Every structure is written in C-alpha cells, then in structure tokens.
C-alpha cells in the first residue's frame, strides 16, 4: 500500500492561512490502513486545527468528510460542486488523491495534509517498511522475491556494494543488506547460481525517468 505521514501542524496551519471555511477530506484507501488519513486521522487533524486556529485567534469553520477513495473519479463527483463552498479542501489522501482533486475539480482549492512516503508493508501495528519502488520493471523473479531497487540504498542490480558488514547496510546498521538477504534466500532455494547471471543495465524510463507514467488496458476502456 501507499504509506504516508501527517505533515507537522505548523505547516498545515501555514497553508490554510486566510481560510475561513475548511473541509478536511479523508480517504478510506491506503492512508486509512496506514493510519495517516482515514476517519480517525481526520478527527485528530480537525481537533488539532481547531486548537491551532483558536490559539492564533482565528475563527475558522471546519467540516469533516471521508471518501471511500480519492483516486477514482466516481468518488470525487460530489466534491466538484461541494468543494467550491470551501476556502480550502485539506486532503488526507496520498499525493495521488490531491493531484486527482486538482485535476478533476476545477475551482476547488486543495491542499495536502500528508507527506506521501513510499510503497510499503505493515510490519506490525504502527510500523511500516518500504518494499517496492514502483520502478515498472520488476526483477523479483531473479532475486528470491526481494527487491534490490527499493531495499538497497544504492538500488544496485548485481550484488552488494563493498559497504555492507555482517549483512547490514553501511547507511544504517538497522537496515539489512538486501543483497545479503537475496544471497541467503537463493541459497535456501538452491538457486544461488542465478546470481552469476548479470542483469543488464536498467532502463529507468519505466521508473518515471521518462516522464509521468500511464497504463492503458484497451478491453476495459469505455
């Protein structure tokens, strides 16, 4: 899922300066699962904004709503008109939702409440870790299911750098060297010889270096 984190309150209050009527718009997609932008977090941000505005002596009307998702056009439909009633719509969706509102809802002033961080997994309650970089050219079949693009600090394609010590990355001893993990995983599966195959130079265009990406599936188009 997409992992995000609430921006610091002074930053949020700063972007809402001058607004007299604000809608905090939550999303029940990924950001709700990672406890950054669902119904509960909308409530917390709302209470914090009320307190922040009160402390600053500003009277601001705050409304709360949460959509099923903010990345599908049908869910944004009601916002096209309703959003115009507000001086600011503070979206607690990931950056996709904020962009989509900006694209689809002309006249609606949308602001981000979150910093969108990465694609990750839930390790335990309250802890998430990056697992995928969305690079568009998956090599997990060669690496025992472990991603060297997302999980190697240098995104190396052909084995570890010289910096790892005892299976730990040189950037941080708390970070495991993914190439060490890949070696152990392939060894466990009797596939270690696969590491001798040299991965060709990556074409990073699929990773967004060739401009914004788009996917079309003809059979599903209207």
């Amino acid at each position, binding site marked *: 899922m997409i992992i995000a984190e609430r921006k*610091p*309150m*002074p930053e949020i209050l700063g972007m809402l300066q001058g607004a007299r009527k604000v809608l905090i718009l939550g999303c029940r997609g990924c950001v709700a699962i990672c406890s950054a932008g669902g119904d*509960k977090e909308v*409530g*917390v941000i*709302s*209470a*914090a904004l*009320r*307190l*922040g505005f*009160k*402390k600053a002596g500003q009277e601001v009307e705050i409304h709360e709503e949460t959509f099923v998702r903010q990345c599908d056009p049908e869910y944004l439909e009601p916002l096209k008109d309703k959003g115009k009633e507000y001086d600011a719509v503070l979206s607690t969706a990931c950056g996709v939702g904020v962009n989509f509102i900006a694209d689809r809802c002309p006249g609606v002033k949308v602001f981000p409440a979150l910093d969108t961080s990465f694609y990750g997994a839930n390790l335990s309650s309250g802890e998430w870790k990056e697992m995928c970089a969305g690079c568009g050219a998956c090599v997990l079949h060669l690496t025992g299911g472990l991603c060297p693009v997302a999980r190697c600090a240098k995104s190396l394609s052909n084995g570890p750098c010289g910096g790892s010590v005892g299976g730990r990355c040189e950037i941080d001893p708390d970070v495991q060297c993914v190439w060490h993990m890949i070696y152990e995983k392939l060894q466990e599966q009797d596939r270690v010889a696969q590491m001798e195959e040299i991965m060709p130079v990556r074409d990073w265009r699929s990773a967004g270096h060739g401009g914004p990406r788009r996917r079309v599936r003809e059979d599903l188009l209207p």
Partner: protein
Amino acid sequence: MAAMGRIVAFCCNYVTSVPAEALQEAGLVPEGMEIRRLPCTGKLEIDQIIGAFADGAEAVFVAGCKIDKCHNASGSHRAAKRVKYAKKILEELSISPDLLEMIFVERGEAGPVVEMAQVMQERLEARDASKETAT
C-alpha cells in the same frame, strides 16, 4: 480551591468512584474541574484529548488503571500511548506538553486524581506567572 484554568480529567470508570462535584465540595479539586468518566481509558481517542483543549480546557489528564491491573487488560496501556501522541501534537502547536498527563491509579482510589488536579493547577499558575513576568 479557586480555578486558575479549566482542567478536564478523563477517568476510567473503575478508577474514580467519587463524583467531581463531591471532590469540589470538599475543596479537594479546583472549581470548574470536569471529570469525564469513560468505560475504559482505552476507549479514549486522540481527537477527544486534543478536542478538550480546543473546547477550552487548559490542562487535561487521564486517569487509568494500573498498567498490570487494567480491568480491560490493556486499556490504560493504549491510553498512555495516545496521550504520548497527543503531547506531540501539543508541542507542534507550541503548547506545553506538561499540561497533559497520564496517571495510573488503583481501583476506586481518588487520591492520585486529586493530587494530579493540584499538580495541573500549579502548572497553570506557573505558566501564568511566567507570562506576566514576560510582559
């Protein structure tokens, strides 16, 4: 006891059996202190804590069961973690996190609640005194 600022205490139902009014009548807690009884402090959400400040409370504390004696196993433990997060929000808003505390109390014991109300009152007095000195 005169009230310096409004204090809200979120109290676990199993912790405080004495009503706030009785404590006030006995002069044990500041006037205007409000006790909001909860079935369990584990039910308390961060927006309720921050919302109490937004609604006019100047100091808030949460009284839950002793960590290892929580009637609902882990309610007060959860509340303590939420209080910690709420303190972070207060800090972000440049409000002293010392105006929010969590205490763990034996079942039916009102003493620690009274003590914490007095501590909060003192903190508010100190805050106001430092404001006056600054001006």
